Structures are given as structure tokens and as C-alpha cells.
């Protein structure tokens, strides 16, 4: 049914030279991004980096001070409302209707898209199945766990069968089981050809889900690319973390770079062989050898200072 046409190659969402200022503070300071159809794109950054404001700009919920946005071929914010007909949004905080049951939440939300009651009713069973809430159609919202609420919010965002899904920190506050369940659902959506834009604090989440990501700080993009490429470009392949307050060995000779954070020493090495041999001789030291990951990249680029 889905015949591939030339249009598929056009970006689903583009933003260029995007700017937004609140008072003296420029929260988004010249941001460019483009999402290809079917990709999962991650927007990463510390608190206050401008991620949520960027999402609001892209959805047309606030007007930029500069720059242009095109969402599903429509200019935003001028035709944002029409564009949102084919967009799903999972907000950072659940805003399900507490007065309604699970099914009523879906029905009422579907009506906001101009869908008929019959059309939404026909869709509810598959949405419940997707959210793993089959049999809970009449449950009150307050009886749902955090993970169930999140999945219902995701199902609600799919009521209009969107082409693009925006998720603002989709797994914050969830336990590991619920988080893995959420990831599995997002992968299923990607498998169905949906385009996803998500913001997250969890590097593990970004590394697992995102085809490409953009790390931003102070309203600007610091770097962009595929998770593996970013790690390869910024961090040596091996990381050894040495813990404890004891006297640490001098690793400078056996690694490319080292960094002391509190009582922990981080050693970054292309070949960790010598370093590990050296550590094994000091049996009192507690250490961890692991591959470089996205969190290393993130901390290197945005610094270790607290932001809130």
C-alpha cells in the first residue's frame, strides 16, 4: 500500500537558524536540525539547554524570534495547527484526564483531531493492545501505575495515526521494567515507519533508540551525528574508572587522557592492556573497565558542572 515516492526523501521536519529569547536570555540561539523520514532523532542536553523550548517552537506553540521551521511540509508557526493533524505528542508530564477512564481519554482526545466517534471507537482496541492495556478500557486513570499512564499517553498520541511523534523525556520517572517496555514500543513504531523526535537525559536511552542525535547546550548545537560516530569521534574506545580515596597509580603513560572527578579517576585509552596490567598489581584498587559510551561524550562536551 505504501508506495515509496520521491517525497519520502524530503525531510519530515526542518528548522534553520532558530532563535528564541526570554528577556535577556537567549534560550535557543541559532539552532539547525533536519529529520529524515523514519528516523529516530534525539535532542540531548543538560537542564536548561533549551530542549523543551525547541520542542515548543517546532510544534508552533510559541513563536520564534528568528529562523524558519517546516513540519510535514507546512510552515510553522503559521500553519502549525494543520501540521499537528499528523503529529503525536507525548509531553514531559502526563496530562491525562483524571476524570475519565482509559477509553474515554482516547475517545475525547481523538475528537480534538476532528475524528468521528465511530472512527476513534474502531481504533481504541488496537491502541489499548499497543499500550498493553487491553482489558483496562474502563479503568480510572488514578488506578494506573506510572508506566501504564506513560503508555496510555503514548497511545493517546497515536490516536490520529501520526507521521511524526514528539516525545519529551518519555521515560523519566519510570522503573527499569516500564522503561524497557516503553523502548520496545518506540522501536515498534519506528518499525512501522514513524519518525520520532525525542528529548532525554538518559544517554543509554539515546544510544539504544536514536539513529542520530544532537547535543545542545545554552541554546546551541554542540555536535550532531549517529551515537556510535559521536563516541568514536570524541572518546577513546576504552574507559577505566578507578575508585576510592587511596593513592592512585600514575596512569599518564598508559592512557591517552585522564580526568579526576572527586575520588574517581577516569582513564581513556586506545589500548587498555598496559593500564589493566598495572592495575592488577595493585590488588586493593577497585576499578571498572568498560567501552566508551555516549555519557562520556555528553559529559566531555557539556562539562560536569551541575545545571539546576
Amino acid at each position, binding site marked *: 500500500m505504501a508506495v515509496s515516492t520521491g517525497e519520502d526523501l524530503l525531510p519530515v521536519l526542518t528548522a534553520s537558524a532558530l532563535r528564541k529569547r526570554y528577556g535577556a536570555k537567549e534560550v535557543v540561539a541559532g539552532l539547525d536540525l533536519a529529520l529524515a523520514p523514519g528516523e529516530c532523532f534525539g535532542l540531548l542536553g543538560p537542564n536548561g539547554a533549551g530542549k523543551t523550548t525547541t520542542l515548543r517552537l517546532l510544534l508552533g506553540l510559541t513563536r520564534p524570534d528568528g529562523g524558519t521551521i517546516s513540519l510535514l511540509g507546512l510552515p510553522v508557526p503559521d500553519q502549525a495547527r494543520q501540521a499537528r493533524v499528523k*503529529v503525536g505528542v507525548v509531553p514531559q508530564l502526563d496530562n491525562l484526564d483524571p476524570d475519565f477512564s482509559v477509553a474515554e481519554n482516547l475517545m475525547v482526545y481523538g475528537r480534538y483531531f476532528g475524528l468521528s466517534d465511530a472512527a476513534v471507537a474502531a481504533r481504541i482496541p488496537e491502541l489499548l493492545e499497543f499500550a498493553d492495556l487491553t482489558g483496562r478500557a474502563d479503568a480510572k486513570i488514578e488506578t494506573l501505575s506510572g508506566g501504564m499512564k506513560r503508555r496510555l499517553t503514548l497511545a493517546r498520541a497515536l490516536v490520529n495515526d501520526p507521521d511524526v511523534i514528539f516525545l519529551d523525556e518519555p521515560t523519566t520517572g519510570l522503573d527499569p521494567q516500564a522503561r524497557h517496555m516503553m523502548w520496545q514500543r518506540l522501536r515498534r513504531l519506528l518499525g512501522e515507519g514513524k519518525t520520532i523526535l525525542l528529548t532525554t537525559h538518559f544517554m543509554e536511552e539515546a544510544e539504544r533508540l536514536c539513529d542520530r542525535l544532537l547535543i545542545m547546550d545554552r541554546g546551541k548545537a554542540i555536535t550532531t551525528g549517529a551515537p556510535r560516530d559521536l563516541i568514536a569521534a570524541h572518546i577513546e574506545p576504552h574507559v577505566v574508572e578507578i575508585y576510592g580515596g587511596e593513592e592512585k597509580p600514575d596512569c599518564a603513560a598508559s592512557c591517552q587522557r585522564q580526568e579526576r572527578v572527586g575520588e574517581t579517576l577516569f582513564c581513556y585509552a586506545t589500548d587498555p592492556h598496559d593500564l589493566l596490567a598495572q592495575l592488577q598489581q595493585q590488588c586493593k584498587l577497585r576499578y571498572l573497565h568498560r567501552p566508551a559510551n555516549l555519557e562520556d561524550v555528553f559529559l566531555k562536551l557539556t562539562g560536569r558542572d551541575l545545571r539546576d
Partner: protein
Amino acid sequence: MTWRHDFSPPSLSWRFIPIWRRNFLVWRKLAIPSILGNLADPAFYMLGLGYGLGGLLPQVAGVPYMTFLAAGTLCYSTMNSATFESLYSAFSRMHVQKTWDAMLNAPLELDDVMLAELAWATSKSVLSGVAILVIILALGLSHSWLLLWTLPLLVLIGFCFTGMALVMNALSPNYDFFMYYFTLVITPMVLLCGVFYPVAQLPAFLQSAALWLPLTHAIELGRPLVQGELPQRIGVHASVLLAYGSASFYLALVLVRRRLLK
């Protein structure tokens, strides 16, 4: 450049209907206590004051006190219902539950949401006015066909006081803020606009103050209708209610755009 968008006129569309239906569905779940509140509360006022106070008074403005009070209660109860809905309930939806945020992520605009709030609170206040009409008929206080003309009046009262309350909603940081509005706007209206006694009883300076308050104009229209007479200066009174409602709604819209779309 955003200034121009904040002050643009309301964009009115039928898209408000699904939002109105959402509020109606919530109301339906709590319909019994809500209707009971609409009926019982004003009924006790009317019976208590009507018999208790009315027994001490020969007639007020040419009619039994109960009849006099009924017209006042009709307007006052409609005002109250519109006010409560547009303050506490609208604020819950906007600020506490973030229901508006969910709507704005769908293909709806803030103007749609505000129009829905206006239509919904007006509908709900008309319903509480109708509850008073039921009491009036049940107590046999009026038999005039003119009573039917109170229905469009109830719409106008609901519209006027919803608009005014939505301004407060747009400005409010929390629920406590609404106390200012009750103390400084609603209470003076209840006591100065002729709900419980004719405005003519007041000293001249309070009479002129009452002229500026919209409830006075609502009662000037409602009382004759309940008593089976045609109101005087209908155009003036209706225009005051319409003007208060429209100007307030526009102001509320500008304020809420600046609050939520920034």
C-alpha cells in the same frame, strides 16, 4: 512581532465543540450532585429569606418578597455558576491538570480552548438559571409567558460573567488569588445590585456605583420578566452585559496568549 499576535482579534471556529463535549462528559459524571447544588442551595435561600424575612415585610416594590427575591436569585445564581466554573474549574484545566496543554498539542488553538471555556461556562450557568426557573414555577411565583424571555437573558448573564471571570483566570497564580475577585467584585454586586432589596433603597452614591455593575442591569431585565412585565430600556441593559462580556473575553484572551504562548 509577537505583540501583534497577542492582540489579534479572537479567531472563532467550530473546533471548540469537541472541547465543550469534553467538559460536558466530565459534568455528566457528576451531574447528580451538581444539579442538586443548583437546586437545593438557592431553594434554601429563597425559602429561608422569602418566608423568614418576607413575613416581616408587607410587600417589596409592589410584589410579595418571595417573588421579588426570586428574580434576584435567578440572576445571582446564574452569575455565581458562571463565575465558579470560569475560576476554579477553568483554572484546574489550564494550570493544575494541564488539560489545555494536551489540547494545544492536538490541532487546536488557544482561541479554540478559550471559546470552549466561554461556551461551556455559559451553558452551565444557564442550566443553574433554569433550575431557579423550575423553583419559581414549582412555588407558583410566576405564571407569565414572559418568563420564557429569561432564557436569552440567562445566556447573556452567563456570557458576561464568564468573560469577566476568565480575565481573573488568566491572571491567577493560584486558587487563593480568586478571593480578591469574590471580595472586591462579586460580593459588592450581590449586595448592591438589587438581589435582596431595590437599588432605590441605597443612598445616591451607592446607587450610582450600582449602575456600573453588570448584575444591576441583569436584574433590571430579569425582575420585570419574572413579575410578568416588559422591562424598560432593554437595549441599554442588554448592551451593558454584552459589552462587559465581550471586552472581558477579549482581554482574557490577550492575557492568556501572553501567559501560555510565550
